[in-house]
């Protein structure tokens, strides 16, 4: 049975694209349109990988990433950030949260800036979870 990958993005176009890449490469895809929905699915399905967008309404990817990495039962799930935001901006925002008293969190396993080529995305996923 194929491995389960969750894609969290508020843009349905990105979801369609990532899901197609996942299917083409033999993975089972799960999808969520925001962080809230994402956390519910993660807890229920325990996916093998999470592909996460940063800029989303309601609950941003910055907060969701932090919640994931602070949860003992979920922190082992690898995360690929796929975002239009530059990596250093994301890291800076995490540092800022840490500076305000939150626990430090590890850097994401892979950070991909949009737009991404389908081949590059497939290769990256393979490298992370095989």
């Amino acid at each position: 049975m194929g491995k389960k990958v969750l894609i969290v993005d508020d843009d349905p176009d990105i979801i369609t694209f990532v899901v197609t890449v996942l299917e083409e490469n033999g993975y089972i895809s799960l999808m969520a349109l925001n962080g809230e929905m994402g956390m519910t699915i993660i807890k229920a399905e325990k996916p093998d990988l999470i592909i996460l967008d940063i800029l989303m309404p309601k609950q941003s990817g910055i907060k969701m990433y932090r919640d994931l990495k602070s949860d003992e039962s979920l922190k082992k799930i690898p995360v690929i950030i796929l975002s239009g935001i530059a990596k250093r901006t994301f890291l800076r925002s995490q540092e800022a949260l840490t500076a305000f008293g939150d626990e430090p969190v590890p850097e994401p396993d892979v950070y991909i800036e949009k737009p991404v080529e389908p081949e590059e995305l497939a290769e990256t996923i393979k490298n992370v979870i095989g």
Partner: protein
Amino acid sequence: MSKLLLIDDEKGIVRVLSISLKSDGYDVVTAYSGEEGLEVFQRESPDIVLTDIKMPGMDGLEVLKRVKDLNPDTEVIIITGHGDMGSAIEALQYGASDFVNKPVRDEVMAIALERAKEKLFMKRKLREYTEDLENMVRIATEEVRRKSEFQDKLITSSNDGIVATDEGGKIVIFNPGAQKIFGYSRLEVVRKTSITDLFPPEIGEEFKKALEHKKIFKGFDWKEVMITAKNGESVPTRFSGSLLYENDEAIGSVGFFQDLTEIQRLERELIESERLAAIGQTVAGLAHYIKNILSGLKGGAYVVKIGLDKDDTNKVRAGWQMVERNVGRVSELVLNLLTYSKERKPEYQVCLPNEIAEDVCVLMETKAEENNIEIIRNFDSSIGKVSLDPDTVHRTLLNLVSNAIDACIFDSNASKKWQVSITTALEDNGIIRLEVSDNGCGMNEDVKKNLFTSFFSTKGGKGTGLGLLVTRKLVGEHGGKINVTSQSGKGSTFVIRLPYSEVIH
């Protein structure tokens, strides 16, 4: 001490009299003839002359005339012999102050001298008063002249144009500031032109009326008016004016003008440069939005390719929809950027505002239904054909309705029955009101503050932050206003007021 000259040809009388006068405290000089008397007079300048009337050679009357010629202020007392009444009267006519009869009695002499001294004193006082008065008049005149000159300079050196008229509305003051603004020289205008020829009609007529009725007129507060200069050009000015009163009676009018041409040019330049700076910032801030579009396009192309390879029509359709959607987003973005960066004049056309609002509702209906949002139309059916820029109405309404729907989508309170209402109404003074109201998530103070800031967006990767900027610019160019009220968690209302002109059938 008064100096006294005593003239008599009888040396004995001179001796006796001078002793008695000296003992009375006078400084006495003497002479024994009229001629000698005059010499002593010129040398000693006495205040009082006491002269015998009958003397060999120059007699007392002649001495009196000469003395009065030399110094009219001198008091001359004539000493007359018995039966000289005729000469005495003549002497009085020539200006003698008194006469005493021989033999001279001390008391009579003392009274005559007292009187003479009093006269001298009065004369001196009078002279002092006269001099004082003249001095005061001179100082006052100088003061008045200085003040008037100062006021003249004040009016002349003022940068504001100052135009004053008499009670008939004829121009009497036209300072250099006014010459610069109106383009007429002082000579062309002063006492030649009437206020109604020079001022814009609404001001000129009002002034004229007020002057004619001589009633209390509260004047004009500062306001912007267009004046027509000599060369026919319109000049924007800031104007204020009032009537001039003297004892509650209108005696003229005065108007102050400030040239706004330069200020308005600078304002335009500032707005232009601010907008261009905002474009730069906006483009930088749009990076993630553009990356999302690129992702969508690339992703769409990829999905289409997979679909074609596998003969999977559903995949092809899904991919194609992605491409289409993102081409739409690119066009909208580019269009917004162009609209925002260029100055645009509204293109007025005869149109039906309710129809445009209906078009917008139809365009947004599907998205609203998908998200359980009801669109409510409150169109004022009395709005007929009017002249305004239909594009402005369409784009601003579309932006506001699309925002309102997003506000409902972003609202986390799922128990709400979401509604977006669009209202059209006519207001006084040729204003049409377009109102878009929602009961979605509303805005907090921070969002409200940044509402019209470039590339500020609350919509994550989906917002460019350009929507309200463009909306405000379009409304501004149409001479309209946009207002926002919002409460976090309760919803927002955007009101646009646009001036329109009625179409006469």
